[in-house]
């Protein structure tokens, strides 16, 4: 694996929300090894730095897409990139969702805000191969309607149940209002035969995963994607520790059976 960033070029770019964009990237020369859903790259903005970003699309014709919210120096620099601009990528890193272990199961995919981005390649694989899985449920929550990513695509996914809810509806929202956990009542799954994939803000992950376990889904079948500061992604910088877990190496996707006690300890 390359230890230095590999040049990629922005071949498409679109706004997801007011502070979130997606960059579609193609390699300038040799590509990185193929990404799997849930794995991540260190995305490098020249002269600014690197951040870890999960892959938000794995196009069949090569390349990769990353969905980035402008929250710091590097993410802001990346959000300013235009078509034709260059970025660097290192990766792929991390565990991924390991969708292959959920074949034949009912699926419960739960996203909060930009947490839908790392789940998008997983959902696309699932809806492209519906016979491999049981009932598919996609539950999406956001703060406001304006914070929903992939809003149009969500409605196109053929699922047993798709729910979208927002905390603060505004004047024109006609859908569900409230926390994403409320949508679990509408989801169709056999808890004993289900695998869940959850990504979003930590309080949302905890509430959702606890609810799923409470409904009978085995904790190790509730996979959560967690986030910590990362500098190297190769297990050497120490920043991404969550107790015993090095999230770049043992995560970012881990089972809630491991995550629950770690998430329960404040400031771990």
């Amino acid at each position, binding site marked *: 694996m390359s230890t230095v960033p590999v040049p990629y070029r922005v071949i498409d770019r679109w706004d997801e929300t007011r502070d979130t964009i997606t960059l579609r990237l193609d390699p300038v020369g040799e590509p990185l090894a193929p990404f799997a859903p849930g794995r991540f790259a260190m995305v490098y903005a020249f002269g600014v730095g*690197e951040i870890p970003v999960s892959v938000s699309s794995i196009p069949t014709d090569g390349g990769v897409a990353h969905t980035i919210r402008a929250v710091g120096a590097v993410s802001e620099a990346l959000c300013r990139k235009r078509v034709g601009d260059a970025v660097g990528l290192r990766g792929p890193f991390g565990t991924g969702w390991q969708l292959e272990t959920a074949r034949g199961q009912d699926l419960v995919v739960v996203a909060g805000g930009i947490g839908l981005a790392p789940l998008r390649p997983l959902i696309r694989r699932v809806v492209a191969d519906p016979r491999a899985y049981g009932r598919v449920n996609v539950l999406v929550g956001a703060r406001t309607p304006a914070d929903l990513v992939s809003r149009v695509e969500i409605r196109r996914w053929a699922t047993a149940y798709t729910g979208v809810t927002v905390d603060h509806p505004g004047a024109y929202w006609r859908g569900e209002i409230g926390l994403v956990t409320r949508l679990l009542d509408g989801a169709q799954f056999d808890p004993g035969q289900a695998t869940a994939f959850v990504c979003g803000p930590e309080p949302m992950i905890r509430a959702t995963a606890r609810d799923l376990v409470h409904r009978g889904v085995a904790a190790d079948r509730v996979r959560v994607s967690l986030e910590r500061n990362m500098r190297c992604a190769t297990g050497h910088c120490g*920043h991404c520790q969550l107790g015993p877990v090095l999230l770049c190496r043992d995560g970012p996707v881990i089972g809630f059976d491991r995550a629950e006690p770690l998430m329960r300890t404040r400031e771990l």
Partner: protein
Amino acid sequence: MPDTGQTALLDRAGLDALVAALTADGRTVVGPTVRDGAVVLAELDGADALPWGWGTELEAGRYRLVRRDDGAAFAHTSGPQSWKSFLHPQREKLWDVDRDAAGELTVCPARNEPPSYAFLGVRPCDLRAIAIQDRVLAGGHFRDDGYAERRSGAFLIAAECTEPGATCFCVSMGSGPAAEAGFDLALTELIDTGGHRFLVRAGSAEGARILDRVPSEKGDTTTSDAARSAVDAARDRMGRAMPPMDLRALLGASPEAERWDDVAARCLTCGNCTMVCPTCFCTTTEEVTDLTGDHAERWQRWDSCFDLDFSYLHGGPVRASARSRYRQWLTHKLSTWHDQFDSTGCVGCGRCITWCPVGIDITEEVNALAEEARS
């Protein structure tokens, strides 16, 4: 690494010849020397630069050099540095990037010809620390290439401990005072009626090869026995000890201990303990650009889990309180290190105690946690 069984006796001139032989092989010899009121690690041009006749007096938050009458070269204990300063340096360039007129990026890994080091006077605790950093930086799925290159070329000469300091607790961590493995040569300093001499054992073929090139006398059983008893005596003179229990389990079960608040009230979160710790490996990165704006460099430098920025995620640090940061450091060192790298992260060198500006003592903290767990 097997002990080849080859032993020899060197005097002060022999030690100098050893340094000369290593230097003649193109190696950079690094060892302890007195500078700025401390025994520091620096490049040595001969054995004369060793701290002959200097000892150290240590306490929590205190380090002083003291004169010794016996002229010993290795009677000092751990100084402010460790060998990680050379194997895992404070600053290291990772890569250069150039941006051309068309905006294309060319990324080149930083190419540093690593010096071929010979470390003279590695304490058994520090030998263990090097083995631990080997696991962390070169033993996983990804390898820190810079570290691996520097490490694989390094020649290690251990110096067994016969004068432990008041902040030492290697015996309770199982990492000293004897050098058992992981060295090319191991010295034991002896000053008695037989004179001032060094018993040398070869621990590798390369060690034996170098030893053959140095004028020496053959080691005899009397000297070997004297060396053994000097090291055994050191075992009984440790200044401190960890409680004799499963520290991994204790720390793993103590995330909500009240003791964390107590230590947090004293801890300045300065990070000194992480800088002097021979196993602490954490780093951060810096992006540096030149005035043209078309050339950037990526640098890695030591970081500390006591720094607020260490755990920063958008919105703020994960570990904002001193309590959580001290808990992270100590729990990682003694417990979660096992989960991550299959070993402890503490070797009992005592540096974190000596160099803590407020004298926080890791053994006292762990004993207090053990007491709290019992009650």
